[in-house]
């Protein structure tokens, strides 16, 4: 048995031990997800920029097609086409505010991945756990296709395809396919597929659960099979375009990019795309006939096709916007799927909040009025009515709201305020408000990621260690 296989078996066992209380066996879910033959096919790579600390350490791990930025340590793990983006980690001397604590950061924060399998997963942001402010850990965890681990230390977890854990510490839990969890800290929970759960204890609690029969059309995952459904087909149909950007060493910039914006060289750009000032297009983003107005962004695994974003739009990790027109300041949450049709476009009015993991899939023209919050599954005007509310109406909720599959308890105004505050922070972090002319306003990723260099590293091509990378330490 080769070392790669031994490592895989060992990780599966560790995850199973953590999830034994839930009676979960991870092995049938992941055994065929990444065939060993794929692990030596793709190089891994890392970014170099003067704006971030460089400290990478890889030990006894497979890293095929994965990307690293900042301070990361990977040990005894298998990463496949995974992005570990450490550009928002805390720095030595920062102050981390959490509840009533003001926590001084004594050393640069580090992403630590141990004994884990991550498949096409995005790791980003920083640890929101006040107990480990300098260590964003991912341990004994399996995350499958297009999962997002965003500021969420995890230990002993299984994450289904297109699931997201956001600013939450997760212990010994199962996060079902296409589920989104932002709840501070959870342990020993089995979150069923299609659950969108946002909780601030004592302030608000938002829970939406997708109808399982309808969700399975979009994404379905079971033991022994690859993830299936429209989401997977959609991504596969565009996979070939990414092969070109990953295979070529020197790529011409495909379109003009303002000097206050960043278009990552590992993004795919198809014709008729325009990028405005302060725009951030991250790697593995896909743009086709897309107009991104000033301060808009398209983060990792986003697809923007035949669509326009008027400006200051957040398109969070994994979101897809097709045949749609988005007004100013529209926020589209993680892994959302918004699809109009050429003859019946989708219009989202300004200042709307499209909640994480929302599916709007319409065959008739559909317009979301300005200043609305939308969640869940929307395929027609009736479902939009059921799964949306104006921001002003939400702000007036003082105790509870039940609407369709949505259960909300708590203070609506605080819920709205928390979201708006976060959207503002994301725009700022991405450099949307930078004033290029007189070089004022905070620089963000759109400005700091310009002129980044990329180095590649390779695994053992043959032999007992085939597919694994040698121990490598990269420092300034």
């Amino acid at each position, binding site marked *: 048995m080769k070392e790669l296989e031994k490592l895989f078996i060992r990780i599966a066992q560790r995850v199973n031990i953590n999830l034994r209380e839930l009676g979960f066996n991870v092995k049938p879910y992941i055994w065929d997800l990444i065939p060993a033959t794929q692990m030596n096919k793709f190089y891994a790579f890392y970014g170099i920029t003067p704006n971030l600390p460089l400290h990478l350490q890889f030990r006894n791990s497979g890293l095929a097609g994965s990307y690293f930025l900042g301070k990361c340590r990977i040990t005894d793990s298998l990463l496949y086409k995974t992005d570990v983006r450490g550009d928002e980690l805390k720095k030595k001397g920062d102050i981390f505010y959490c509840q009533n604590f003001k926590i001084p950061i004594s050393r640069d924060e580090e992403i630590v991945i141990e004994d884990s399998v991550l498949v096409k997963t995005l790791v980003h942001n920083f640890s929101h756990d006040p107990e480990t402010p300098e260590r964003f850990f991912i341990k004994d965890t399996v995350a499958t296709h297009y999962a997002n681990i965003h500021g969420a230390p995890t230990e002993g977890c299984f994450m289904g395809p297109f699931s997201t854990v956001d600013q939450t510490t997760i212990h010994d839990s199962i996060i079902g396919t296409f589920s989104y969890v932002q709840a501070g800290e959870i342990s020993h929970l089995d979150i069923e597929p299609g659950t969108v*759960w946002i*909780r601030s*204890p004592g302030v608000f*609690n938002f*829970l939406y*659960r997708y109808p399982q029969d309808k969700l399975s059309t979009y994404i379905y995952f079971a033991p022994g099979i690859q993830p299936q459904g429209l989401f997977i087909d959609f991504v596969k149909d565009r996979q070939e375009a990414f092969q070109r950007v990953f295979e070529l060493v020197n790529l011409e910039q495909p379109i003009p990019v303002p000097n206050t914006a960043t278009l990552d060289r590992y993004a795919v750009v198809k014709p008729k795309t325009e990028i405005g000032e302060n725009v951030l297009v991250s790697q593995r983003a896909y743009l086709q006939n897309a107009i991104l107005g000033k301060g808009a962004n398209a983060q990792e695994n986003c697809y923007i096709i035949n669509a326009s974003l008027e400006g200051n739009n957040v398109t969070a990790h994994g979101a897809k916007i097709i045949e749609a027109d988005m007004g100013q300041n529209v926020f589209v949450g993680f892994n959302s799927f918004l699809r109009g049709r050429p003859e019946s476009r989708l219009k989202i009015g300004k200042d709307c909040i499209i909640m994480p993991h929302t599916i709007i899939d319409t065959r008739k023209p559909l317009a979301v009025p300005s200043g609305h919050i939308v969640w869940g599954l929307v395929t027609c005007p009736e479902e939009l009515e059921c799964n949306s509310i104006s921001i002003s109406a939400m702000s007036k909720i003082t105790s509870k709201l*039940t609407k369709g599959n949505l*259960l909300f*308890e708590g203070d609506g105004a605080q819920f709205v305020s928390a979201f708006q505050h976060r959207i503002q922070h994301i725009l700022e972090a991405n450099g949307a408000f930078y004033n290029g002319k007189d070089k004022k306003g905070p620089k963000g990723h759109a400005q700091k990621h310009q002129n980044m260099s990329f180095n590649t590293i390779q695994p053992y091509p043959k032999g007992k260690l085939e597919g694994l990378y040698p121990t490598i330490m990269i420092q300034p």
Partner: protein
Amino acid sequence: MDKYLVKDLMVPISEYATVSEGSTLLEAVLALEKAQEIFDHTQYLHRAILILDKNQKVIGKVSQLDTLRALEPKNEHLDKIEDISRYGFSQKFIMSLKEQNRLHNIPLGEMCVAAADLTVETLMQAPTEGEFIDENATVNSAIHQLVQGSHMSLLVTREKDIVGILRSSDVFAAVFHSMKACKLA
């Protein structure tokens, strides 16, 4: 008080409400009513029906709460409401959802009629290890066992047989009597 044993306070099984397995809830309730009419030693009513197998061995107990539980609506929607407690919603919120759900259910009168035909096996609770006590045990031990397990009654044994039931109401009455005698003597 200290000289009392469990057997001094228990209700003999022959005087308690019992039905055979396979009986309906209505038959059980009628048995309870009949037993109560015959047994008029105290002001305290029997609160449960014992279920006997074909060998006259106790296999379970249907309490008043078990009977009321049979009237609770059961549907997929209610299961989902129960499930949300793990997502950190308050009891007040969950109760309000249950109340909303209840309004859509069949009237209580119709549910009573339906519940009357349920067999006792579907409602009964099998006795757990802590619900048995020897007839020669002290009342002090019985009190400890009732309190620790939050039981309303204990099954009293003589070797392998169940010979009676020790009700918390009878223990309470004995304690109350002793308290009064000591303090007011």
